[in-house]
């Protein structure tokens, strides 16, 4: 018979017994790595009349545990918490900025067209008709703002959906990702000094105003 049993069993190898007692004493649930480690130790401690089939099953389980550990490390290395804390919010902000800037530009175009249209009373009839037709074409073309706005809104909704899923993944990993982050500090990609200056266009709240830039330039004089 095998010697698998509860921790504290007299027939259990002392090292494994100590390991299980240590896990039982932890206030939080043991991590998957702890469990995988103990399962590995148990498999190595097995002795007695184990059938060949049982041994194969145990070997498969051990392989599976190693595979899960490896996959977890790879997923942790992807830094999924960065996706929710940095990349997705940044992408969403950029898309919101597109909607805002196209709306502002469209309003500017419409305002100019309305002014032009109001002047047609002062134009010769033939010219006024041509101007009105041109203005109408501009109105029609400005449809784009509504369409692009709706499309971007759909993309933002999709990003938020992805964000929710990744957040669930991060939550499922518990503090393992944080531990990985601490043990494997990220290496920032090497950029030339010129490349480090390529970050624009800035979002409206981060963008420098012309007056500020003029003041900065003046400070060099």
């Amino acid at each position, binding site marked *: 018979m095998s010697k698998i049993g509860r921790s504290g069993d007299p027939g259990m190898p002392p090292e494994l017994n100590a390991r299980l007692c240590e896990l039982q004493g932890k206030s939080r649930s043991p991590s998957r790595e702890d469990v995988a480690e103990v399962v590995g130790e148990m498999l190595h401690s097995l002795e007695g009349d184990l059938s060949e089939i049982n041994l194969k099953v145990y070997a498969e389980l051990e392989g599976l545990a190693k595979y899960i550990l490896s996959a977890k490390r790879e997923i942790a290395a992807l830094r999924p918490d960065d996706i929710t804390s940095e990349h997705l919010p940044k992408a969403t902000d950029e898309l919101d900025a597109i909607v805002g800037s196209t709306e502002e530009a469209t309003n500017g175009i*419409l305002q100019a067209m309305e002014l032009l249209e109001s002047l047609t009373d002062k134009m010769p009839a033939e010219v006024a008709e041509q101007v009105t037709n041109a203005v*109408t074409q501009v*109105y029609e073309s*400005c*449809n784009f*703002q*509504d369409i692009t706005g709706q499309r971007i809104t759909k993309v933002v909704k999709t990003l938020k959906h992805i964000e929710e899923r990744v957040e669930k993944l991060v939550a499922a990993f518990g503090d393992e990702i944080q531990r990985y982050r601490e043990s494997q500090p990220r290496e920032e990609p090497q950029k030339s000094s010129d490349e480090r200056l390529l970050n624009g266009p800035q979002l409206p709240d981060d963008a420098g105003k012309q007056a500020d830039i003029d003041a900065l330039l003046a400070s060099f004089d």
Partner: protein
Amino acid sequence: MSVDMNMNILIVDDYKTMLRIIRNLLKQLGFNNVDEATDGSMALQKLRDKDYGLVISDWNMEPMTGIQLLREVRADSKLKNLPFIMITAESKTENVVAAKEAGVNNYIVKPFNAATLKTKLSSVLGNF
């Protein structure tokens, strides 16, 4: 019967630029009494507060969509016969069928042009 060019028209869209475009195109066609709402519930309130001869509404708005507005209008004894044109980027057959079943008078797909708007208005209101 001639079209009352002084009728009140309510345009409903959550994009202010679109409201502005439709208003300007209506003005070019001779309709100057145009009010705006940015969703169905605001539109419904305006429709109950003032007499309108036509509603031109977007579909995709929050909290009340265009199709919900249409159903509310058709369910209201005072508003049920009000001409209603849907003007939307929702172009699937199922959308058009749903709108028709809800009682829409005509349907314009965005992006649209001035000629289409005039044709649809004539179809609903009569030639002008």
